[in-house]
Structures are given as structure tokens and as C-alpha cells.
């Protein structure tokens, strides 16, 4: 039987329920009593949980198949960004692949217009650089080297297995996820009792995002996340097995919101999660991944008695740094060209953009969630490309390198094409919602 709540969570929305489930289990491990008071909030936006979130859920004993089934989930292996007529798929990657010790993105990212001229469906190659001799094999676009790109584009799904190393997200129905995480929290001992007087109270209220985006449901569509850029606004399409939700991001207000100065962590007990919720937007995996990493840190620095302030200060500082860095990635939805980034981006973002354009290098900082490969692909999707290729790539034999990459692309595509559709995959794992249930749910 759990003790009286010494740790108490007040919040709203599925993110607060997610936090409650994780904290309840962690509190159980520490022998602390845990309570929560969580309102439903606006249950409109599907949850996108990335690799960090899934790792944390796995760590507290939540089974992925069960989660998918209960929350009408689908898989998302990446995001397709449409900037004008130029779609670009960015898979969720686990690390940096190299060729002869040089990161692949530094070899491929400077490829002029490999993606933009032909689109990802064709993956037609263009020449390596001006002056490429006729007959020299050209380099494939970077994203084309990963099977998850093909899986995403063709609505197929397979869990990664060697040698195919990639990561994935799950997209969950907000109503179902709220119920599921609240049930999990209760299962792990969360109590509805009020906290004891000396309890540590954490707040996790999901901000209302109406001034930043609107949400509408669209007809059934392929299962993948898609972001479409329409001049000054963007539509972010997120699909579930039962519905497709379209978030229209309002350009001006959102840009303004995201451009507010970085809040400084003040060590207030209530701010350790709230900072992420107010700084990041829940339209991609970064929101829940950042929350998950902070929850894990909360466990590692579990605040105890009189020393809570010291631990919370550490957690808050780290959460704030992580949120700021992740927010730079999200802000690329609005700062979508070099000029905007260099005039309105944070110092860290300007630094990334400047060095990437200069030589294809991405400077990373402590607390980054997004790795260099994804940054490079995202810049490339905005038409921002390095002016020069890595000088160390110069001595590589272009013909051999081209052939190696083309083979890798063929292997990736070949393997991906043998995988089953996401619908079949979900059905096979018993996580697909029958059509009749889906209709009722809608």
C-alpha cells in the first residue's frame, strides 16, 4: 500500500497523464507516495512518442504492443516535409553513419538538389558537383540511404533489426492515451488523496495551443506524419489508425511565441516539466522525448526532503537547456530560410546554420535531442545546403564511393520493399483496431 502522497502532480492533458504514469512507477521504486490531480484538458492532438519516450515507457514496464492496441496507435518512421513542391522525408535516426570515417551527411548533404529536383519518390540522382565528369556515378540523396525512408513513403512498417539501424515513433489517440496512462498511473500506486503538507508539488499543465495552431480532421490518408508549408503557415498532418488530424500552424503568432526569450530556470519546484510544455509544441516527437528525458533525470536526481531544492535546480537547468535546443529544431517550421535563421534564431541555431552552410558541419551541444544527421537533413529540406563538401572526402574515390552508396540505397530499398504494410503489420501484432470499433471511436 502506498504512503500518503509526498510527490504530487497537478496538470492537464495527455502529457500530464503520461508524466503521472512514469512518476507513479518511479515513486513506487523509491517507496515514495505519489498523488495526482489531472484534468482531461483539450484532447485533440495525437501524441507522438519518439525513441526516448518509448525507452522510458519500456523501462516502467509498458508493453509496446499493448500500448499500440489500447491507444489506437500507428507507427511513424519519420516526417515528410513539403516546402513548396519539394517533399523531403526525414527519418528518425539513431546515430551517424560514416563512410571511411566521414559522416554520410557531410558527404551527401552538399549534393546539389539531389532531392529537390526530383522528389523522394524517384530518387533520381544528379551529378556530384559542377564539373563532374560524364560517366561518374552520382551520389544518392542522404535520406535515401535509410530503409526507414522507404518504409515511411510506402506506408510499410518493420521494427529495426541489424544491419538496418533506425528508430521510430508511435502516434497515439489522445483520448485513449489519456485513459491508458491514467490507468497505468493508478496501477503503479497513484492516489487521489491530497498531498501531505510537506509534499513536493509539480505542475504539468498543457498550454492551450489555439493561438498557435488549429486542428481539423481530414479524410483517411496514408499513415505518416506530413508537414506542408503554405507560404506563411504550415499544415502538420498526423495520422492514426482511426483518423487523420491536421494541425494548421499559424505563422505569425507561433513565430512570436517561439521567439520569446529563453526562460531561465528559477529552481521553483513546479517548473521542472512546465518549462518543456510551454517551450515546445506537441506536433513532433521532441515534446514527449524532452519530457521523458526530464522525467528520467527527475528519477536520477529524485528530490529528497530538505535537499529538494538542490536536486530540482539541477533538473530544471537541464530541462531548460534541452527544451531550448529542441525548440530551435521546431522553430525551423517558421524560420525556414537562411536569412530568417541568421536574424531571428538563437545563437546555437545560428551557429548550426552557419557552420552547416560553410562546410556541412553541425555543432552539437550538451542536452541535444536531435542528432547531427537529422539536423543536416532538416536544413537540406529547407534548401539550405553546404557550400563545400568535407575536405577529407576529396581523396575518396568518387566512383567507389558512389557505387558503395548506391548499393546501400538499393539494399535499403530492397529490404524495405519486402516488409508488410503498416495495416498488415498492426493487424499481425494484434494492435489494429477493427474498422467498426474505429468508426465508433470517431
Amino acid at each position, binding site marked *: 500500500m502506498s504512503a500518503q502522497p509526498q510527490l504530487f502532480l497537478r496538470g492537464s492533458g495527455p502529457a500530464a497523464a503520461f508524466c503521472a504514469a512514469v512518476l507513479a512507477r518511479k515513486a513506487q*521504486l*523509491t*517507496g*515514495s507516495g505519489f498523488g495526482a490531480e489531472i484534468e482531461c484538458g483539450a484532447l485533440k492532438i495525437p501524441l507522438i512518442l519518439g525513441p526516448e519516450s518509448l525507452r522510458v515507457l519500456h*523501462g516502467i514496464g509498458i508493453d509496446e504492443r499493448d500500448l499500440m492496441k489500447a491507444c489506437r496507435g500507428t507507427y511513424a518512421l519519420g516526417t515528410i516535409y513539403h516546402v513548396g513542391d519539394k517533399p523531403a522525408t526525414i527519418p528518425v535516426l539513431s546515430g551517424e553513419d560514416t563512410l571511411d*570515417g566521414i559522416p554520410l551527411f557531410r558527404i551527401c548533404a552538399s549534393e546539389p538538389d539531389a532531392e529537390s529536383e526530383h522528389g523522394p519518390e524517384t530518387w533520381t540522382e544528379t551529378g556530384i558537383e559542377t564539373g563532374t565528369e560524364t560517366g561518374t556515378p552520382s551520389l544518392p540523396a542522404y535520406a535515401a540511404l535509410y530503409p526507414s525512408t522507404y518504409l515511411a513513403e510506402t506506408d510499410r512498417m518493420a521494427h529495426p533489426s541489424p544491419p538496418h539501424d533506425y528508430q521510430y515513433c508511435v502516434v497515439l489517440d489522445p483520448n485513449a492515451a489519456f485513459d491508458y496512462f491514467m490507468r497505468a498511473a493508478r496501477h503503479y500506486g497513484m492516489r487521489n488523496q491530497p498531498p501531505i503538507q510537506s509534499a513536493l508539488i509539480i505542475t504539468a499543465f498543457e498550454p492551450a495551443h489555439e493561438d498557435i495552431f488549429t486542428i481539423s480532421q481530414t479524410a483517411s490518408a496514408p499513415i505518416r506524419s506530413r508537414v506542408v508549408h503554405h507560404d506563411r503557415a504550415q499544415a502538420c498532418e498526423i495520422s492514426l489508425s482511426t483518423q487523420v488530424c491536421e494541425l494548421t500552424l499559424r505563422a505569425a503568432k507561433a513565430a512570436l511565441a517561439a521567439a520569446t526569450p529563453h526562460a531561465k530556470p528559477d529552481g521553483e519546484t513546479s517548473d521542472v516539466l512546465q518549462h518543456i510544455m510551454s517551450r515546445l509544441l506537441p506536433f513532433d516527437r521532441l515534446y514527449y522525448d524532452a519530457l521523458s528525458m526530464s522525467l528520467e533525470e527527475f*528519477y*536520477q*536526481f*529524485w528530490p*529528497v526532503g530538505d*535537499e529538494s531544492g*538542490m*536536486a530540482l535546480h*539541477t533538473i530544471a537547468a537541464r530541462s531548460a537547456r534541452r527544451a531550448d535546443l529542441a525548440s530551435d529544431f521546431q522553430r525551423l517550421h517558421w524560420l525556414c530560410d537562411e536569412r530568417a535563421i*541568421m536574424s531571428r*534564431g*538563437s*545563437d*546555437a*541555431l*545560428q*551557429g548550426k546554420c*552557419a*557552420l552547416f552552410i*560553410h*562546410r556541412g*558541419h553541425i*555543432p*552539437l551541444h*550538451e542536452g541535444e535531442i536531435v542528432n547531427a544527421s537529422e539536423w543536416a537533413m532538416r536544413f537540406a529540406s529547407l534548401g539550405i545546403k553546404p557550400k*563545400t563538401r568535407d*575536405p*577529407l572526402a*576529396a*581523396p575518396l574515390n568518387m566512383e567507389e564511393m558512389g557505387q558503395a552508396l548506391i548499393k546501400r540505397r538499393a539494399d535499403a530499398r530492397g529490404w524495405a520493399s519486402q516488409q508488410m504494410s503498416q495495416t498488415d503489420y498492426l493487424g499481425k501484432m494484434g494492435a489494429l483496431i477493427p474498422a467498426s470499433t474505429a468508426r465508433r471511436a470517431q
Partner: protein
Amino acid sequence: MSSIGEMKLNSHTNSTSPNASAAAPRPVKHIVIAGGGTAGWMTAAALAKLVIPAGIKVTLIESDSIKTVGVGEATLPHLRFFNTSLGFDEKEIFRETEATIKLGIEFCDWGKIGDRYVHPFGDYGFDVRGVSFHHIWSALHRNQAAGRIDDFSLPVVMSEQNRFCFPSDDPERLMSTFSYAYQLDAGLYAQYLRKFAQRCGVTRIEGRIDEVKMAADGEHIDGLILSDGTTINADFFVDCTGFRALLIGNTKGRDFEDWTHWLPCDRAVAVRCEGSNAPEPYTRASAKDAGWMWRIPLQSRIGNGYVYSSEMISPETAERDLLAQLEGPTTSDPLHLKFKTGWRRAGWSGNCVAVGLSAGFLEPLESTSIHLIQSAITHLIELLPLSSDSPLEAAEFNRLMDNEVDKIRDFLILHYHATQRTDSPFWDKMRELSVPESLTEKMEIFRRLGYVQSYKTGLFLDASWVAVFLGQNIIPQSSHPAALSLPPQKAAAMASSLAAQIKSTVSVLPQHRDFISEFTHSAGTKAPGAAGAAGARQS
């Protein structure tokens, strides 16, 4: 310190300034390394392997008449990756450099006189309920039921029993819980690198640098004038001239952040003596009245030294004290060195980058000198300048190095500051020291809660901090509640079983000396017996 973002904006602003036109940027086609020694030849070897194939000429200038310091006989595990990336054969390294294995550093008399602990290249125990083992240990320790933390570290027990075998690749095995480095003759290592670099196309020029010829802007270097009057021009320069910092000292990178108030040792005396037949697989650092002494056992000799504060004792006293500690006849004359601890925040300035002692010096205490050389080379290659004017690359390089050095600095200060010694003015001063805020916070949170403020980018990770905290008697007042919620008897039984498992795993490993002998003479890449000694890890 300006960020790259600011740098980008500034570089637009400056593009019309008179200075900018004074030194027209040119593509980097020729790199000159000024100075040999460990830093110079490590840089040359790496550039030879990775940069010469890209069509860039590499020249190294050194003078046989200038003695090198030969820093860092004891190394860190990272050096193995450097060697591997250059394609070096590990057996050859053992044979050519007198190398022995290093599993960590034994610290004697640092907390109190009579104290002893090992900072191992490996973990303590295993995570329980998602929290580090040291939380379990400290909970047991408060109940007088813990034993030594050393007993829960495989490399510490291996060190104590003078045994070694390569780590296992299988993460499920206990033998996968450590890493290793080398104790080697830095001079021989530099010679090995020199042969490799010259074979790969590095041009060596014998000569003494008399003058650094600056460009009209006063920020870039045009060339180096040697004592015979020859001028060596290049597009980019690497300053490996040691403490003299001949090149970087002429640029905007000349500013040196002095850290002697935190790390006050400023002299060292080094001497070699004959070794025993059973060299230990660890380096020893023994705290003394005015500093500390090192002992590094190689295959046939021992490297010894006394690092001290000149405010406290004279060079003569230091030499006398050092010689009195030797275990065998000397095989070299004592070599006296002067240094100042600190760092150049702009180690890359204009078209010059400082690598090694010219960039700064911390302390040989944790064998970081060679590591910082390696780190600078790695970042230099990652950011290989495209032209002689590379402000973006310079800013990023300096950011990365600062980030690394600041953390190392804090870690080193911890050794001095976390002392309870009251037997000499030196230790009184160190105990009362006002340390950087970043370190105060780290110490305080560990002292009160047992939490380690970890980071992902940096040299010394959690286990290293835990080793020094606990080794120097900073025992947490509390443990993670997940550790406290374990029934004490269960925790004690678990700990005791782990210690027994470690002991039995180590007992069947070969003796260190036999291992080296067998490995260097065997045909395969791994020593016989490596697989059989890998006990299963507890879950």
C-alpha cells in the same frame, strides 16, 4: 567568448575592414607543424593519414638541439582509438614503446595520510533499480556493512592482483566492465609516430625557429624564419612548441587564463629508475608535503616524478625527496621542469592552432596531457580549415576545447581540494581553496544526496567522479531512495555476491607481465585465455 552565430554576423561586418583585406584568405594547401615531441608527431601522424591524401602538404619543423618535455607516460584508454584509427598494430606499440597496461591510477595519502584508492577505467558494480551501484554501497557504508568500494570494481581488483586480460566484447560479461590504457615511453612513442608520419609523406625539417613572420594584419602568420635564414611559408600552422608557445603567442591567442590559484603546482622533477620484473598495471600518484609524486612502471624501468609548488619547497628539496623514494638505481639524470597551469581560450587564432603544452597545461595528475593533444587533433581534423582565414572553424574548435578543459580542470581541482590533510601548509591551502562554482555545486550535491551531475560530452564520466569523491572520503549523507528502499540484508547479500564473483573472475587471469609477454609474442590479435576468463555479469 563569442558564439559561432555572433561570429557569422561579425564576419559580415568585418569584411570591409582594412585588416580583412590585409591578409587575403587562401586555400589551405600546406600545413606546417612547429615542434616535434609527442604533440608534434601525434599531429603529424594524424594529418599524414587523413590530410595528405586530400592533397595537402604537411611539414614538421623540429630541432634535435631542443629537448622535448615528453609529457604523459601514462595515458588514457582513448589513445587506443587514436592508434586504431591510424591502423597501428597494438603488439607493435607494446614492443616499440616499452608499454605496459594501465587499468587506472592508485592515489595514496590524498584524503588522509594512509588512505589509498584507485580511480579505475571502469564501473563500480551494476545499476540496481535504475540507479548507480554507489548508492547501494553508500547506504551499506552508513550501516557499517559495505566493505571497500574497490572490491566492486573489476579493474581495481585486477590492479591489486597484478593480473590482466583484454576486456570482453559481450556486454553480459563481467569482463566487459572495464577499459585499459598504456603506460609507455613517450619519447619512443613519438619516434614510432615519426616513422609512420614520414612514411606517409610528412616532410621533416631540422631547424630552429628564430622568428615568426606575421602577415600585415598582425593576426595571421605568413611564415617561420629558421636560424639558418630559411623562411618556411604555409597556409596554416600548428603550434607544438610546448610551453614556449612560439607561434600562438604572437597571435590574438596569446591571452592565457592563469589557473595557478586553483592548481598551484608549478614545478616538476622527473627521473627514471630500474624497474622490477613485475610491473604493476596501474600508475601511482602519492600525495606529498608540497605536491605529489608519480610512479609509472614500464616494461623495464619506472618513470618517477615529483610535481610540487615552488612556493613550498625548493627544487633541491624536491629532487632529494624524489630520489629518496626510488625503488632502484636511477637510469637518467633528474630533469627539472617549470610550468604554469592555465589555458588559452583562443587556442585557434587566425591561421594557427595550438596543440599540446602551447595551448595550456593542467596537471599530469590524471594523465590528461596526451588526451588533450588527441582531442585537439580530432577537432582540428573534423574542422580542417578550408582557407587560411577560418573564423567559424576557430570559434567551434575553441568552444569544444573549452568545454572539455573546464570539466577536466574541475576534476583535477577536486583531488586537491577534497583533502582532510592538515600536516603541511600546502594541504592547508588546498583544503581552504575557493573552487569554481561548477565544482562547488557538484561536490555539494554528491555530499548531500549522492547524485553525480553527469554530462555526455567530456572526459571523466560518472564512475570517475564517484571514484575520487568516495576515495577522498566524500561519503554521501544520503542515498537515492530507490537504493534505500531495498531491504538492507538483500542489498548486503547482493553486494557480497558481486565482490566474490569479481574476485573469482580475476583469480584466473594471467599475471600482467606474463600477459604482455605472451601477447607480444603470440600470432593472433588477442591473448590466449581472454575468453575463458569472462564470468557472467549479474543482472
